[in-house]
């Protein structure tokens, strides 16, 4: 979220962005999903009353943006009621959806409930690849829903996650978003968490692919300026400085998982040593201000070298804690995307390994592990102590 203030009047952190992951149920099976690989463990979804209480408490603390996400939020039958309450509370309400489970009647009902914005994901620019990646026959339906979203005058964001299997389509993807009259397009390169991390050999684009994609993205940004905002994010594995992940731990983002666990980011569930305070047991104010989890990596005092004495530490706050944990085994280390990290070279070598093997028949024919409850269950049962 952009918080480019014309005037910033506070440096005290507030949960400005509430991400409500209503469910991990989803009709799609995208192999890059950012949900936890162990999602099969999450049962016992929050009730409508729980969600309303969470929304009220976060709003009272100053939250303005609310994302209804998942899994697929449309699976929840109480979505209309939640939108209505969110809007009444004064949130800007975002529905982040695959479009599967939507129809015209529901789009109208959401509008009546006060929904501000709909974001639809596409997996590719054509039916065959879209349906393959999503593991579901959904392309035509998505297309139709995107048309209806504009018909009912919502601002529309189209989100396309880019990776090695679809990045060559970038021009067609952008033409599709123009045809659908999107207001914003997010070309989000896969970030390697959750399912995408276990599928990284199949998903990481080559350097050459990225360079081509960037040229096309820049061309369309120029061509479409004033009409459509195109946001293009390259995978940070190709960078030398890490991203200021979540704009800082416990700084503006608050994620609530389907079972009520409160997290500083949607991927943090994998980190060891966190207690995962639950909104069934605690209020948002305590969770945000007082809980050990939300204070654990706040600011810079938790840092080790090379971050601790780094003159750029306030710029990126050491990068991503999950990435540090996944790639170094210690969440307090510098994000290895940073070339000051002693693990940077290992990461670069892995990127080069995949780059070299890409395009080779044997390597490309390795099957994707699709995101579904069956694979999650297998994975959870087999899981060893090794970080993924």
């Amino acid at each position, binding site marked *: 979220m*952009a918080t480019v*203030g*014309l005037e910033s009047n506070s440096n005290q952190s507030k949960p400005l962005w509430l991400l409500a992951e209503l469910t991990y149920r989803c009709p799609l099976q995208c192999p890059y999903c950012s949900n936890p690989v162990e999602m099969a463990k999450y049962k016992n979804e929050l009730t409508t009353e729980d969600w309303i209480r969470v929304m009220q408490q976060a709003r009272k603390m100053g939250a303005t943006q609310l994302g209804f996400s998942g899994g697929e939020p449309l699976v929840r039958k109480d979505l209309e009621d939640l939108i209505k309450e969110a809007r009444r509370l004064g949130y*800007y309400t975002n529905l982040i959806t695959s479009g599967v489970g939507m129809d015209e009647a529901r789009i109208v009902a959401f509008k009546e409930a006060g929904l501000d*914005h709909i974001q639809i994901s596409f997996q590719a620019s054509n039916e065959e690849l879209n349906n393959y990646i999503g593991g579901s026959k959904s392309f035509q339906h998505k297309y139709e829903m995107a048309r209806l979203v504009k018909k009912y005058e919502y601002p529309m964001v189209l989100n396309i996650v880019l990776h090695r299997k679809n990045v060559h389509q970038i021009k067609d993807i952008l033409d599709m978003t123009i045809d659908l009259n999107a207001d914003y397009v997010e070309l989000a390169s896969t970030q390697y968490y959750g399912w995408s991390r276990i599928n990284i050999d199949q998903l990481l684009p080559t350097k050459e692919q990225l360079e081509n994609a960037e040229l096309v993205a820049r061309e369309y940004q120029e061509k479409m300026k004033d009409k459509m905002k195109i946001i293009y994010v390259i995978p940070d594995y190709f960078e030398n400085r890490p991203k200021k992940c979540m704009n800082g731990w416990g700084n503006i983002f608050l994620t609530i998982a389907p079972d009520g666990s409160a997290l500083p980011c949607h991927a943090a569930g994998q980190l060891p040593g966190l207690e995962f305070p639950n909104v069934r047991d605690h209020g948002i104010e305590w969770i945000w201000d007082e809980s050990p989890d939300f204070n654990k990596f706040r600011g810079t005092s938790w840092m080790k070298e090379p971050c601790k004495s780094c003159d750029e530490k306030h710029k990126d706050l050491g990068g991503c804690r999950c990435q540090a944990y996944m790639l170094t085994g210690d969440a307090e280390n510098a994000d290895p995307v940073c070339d000051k990290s002693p693990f940077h070279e290992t990461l670069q070598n892995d990127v080069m390994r995949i780059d070299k093997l890409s395009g080779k028949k044997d390597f490309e024919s390795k099957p994707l592990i699709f995101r579904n409850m069956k694979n999650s269950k297998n994975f959870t049962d087999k899981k060893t102590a090794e970080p993924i």
Partner: protein
Amino acid sequence: MSIELKNEIILEIIPTFRVQWEEVQNCHVVLYPEGMVKLSQSAGEIMKRINGKKSIIDIITDISITFDGADVKEDILNFLEVAYGNGWIRIKQ
């Protein structure tokens, strides 16, 4: 992008944006898909008056009265350029 800001022009907020007062932030904000911009006090005073009814001269007069007859015209026109450039406002047809 620029706009010819004549006195009689009536402006409106583009419907994909929402302007509201935020008690906790103690300022007006502009909200849009997944984003928010906090407005300074003067920017908030201007944006809250853009309602598809008031002309630019109405807004200038109104704000000048609120601030004890201060000469605010130049500041307001400058801010409207910014707001227009950001795609928040348009001329009501």
